[in-house]
């Protein structure tokens, strides 16, 4: 699965994107956040408040509880401030 990071999530993790093979038990967005948090200090810092992190699955907003399914691209980012 391709993971993309934006804004301060990208800065804190230290990269804009990566390819990760997820273990089978990572089924939802919330599972993904918990899985990534355990990967290192940079992830733990970026995702220290998982409730503020927004998740997009294949270019569409998704709830943390929604299944990731066969998503090709999942993005994690802070609340948006465009316009």
């Amino acid at each position, binding site marked *: 699965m391709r993971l993309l990071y*934006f*804004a*301060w999530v990208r800065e804190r993790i230290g990269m804009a994107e990566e390819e990760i093979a997820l273990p089978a038990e990572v089924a939802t967005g919330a599972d993904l956040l918990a899985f990534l948090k355990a990967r290192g200090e940079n992830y733990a810092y970026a995702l220290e408040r998982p409730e503020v992190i927004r998740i997009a699955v294949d270019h569409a907003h998704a709830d943390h509880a929604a299944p990731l399914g066969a998503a090709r691209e999942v993005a994690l*980012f802070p*609340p*948006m*401030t465009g*316009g």
Partner: protein
Amino acid sequence: MAVVSVRIAAGPIDVAAELAAVEGSGDIGAVVSFTGLCRAEGGRLAALEIEHYPGMAEAEIGRTVAAAAARWPLAALRVVHRHGRIRPGETIVVVIAASAHRAAAFAAARFVMDYLKTRAPFWKKEHFADGTAGDWVSPKAEDDAAAAGW
């Protein structure tokens, strides 16, 4: 059927040209445009850097525009949003709604802006005039409230 257009621009937005692109049809009686500009913040700000999620930005604004076109009788709905480094006084976003009558045009333009603020994947970072990089702009609770009001 509304003629819709969504564009993410890397360079300056020509608001007059965007307006000219929707005017001129005999069935349009009202055109409402909203222009969002980069503020100088009292001279403190040198530039805003706007990051976006290519692909999703177009898709998300496209969904918002489609929802507006389904809800109001519009002749045209046009959105242009910039990304990259933007100086005070430059245009960040333009929303143009055209309809036979003003009520639909006003409502659609406001709806699109309210949704875009909270759902379109763009993030602003401040760069200050003294050369320091500021922080990422925080979302405003009133923007969430405005979007929830629809």
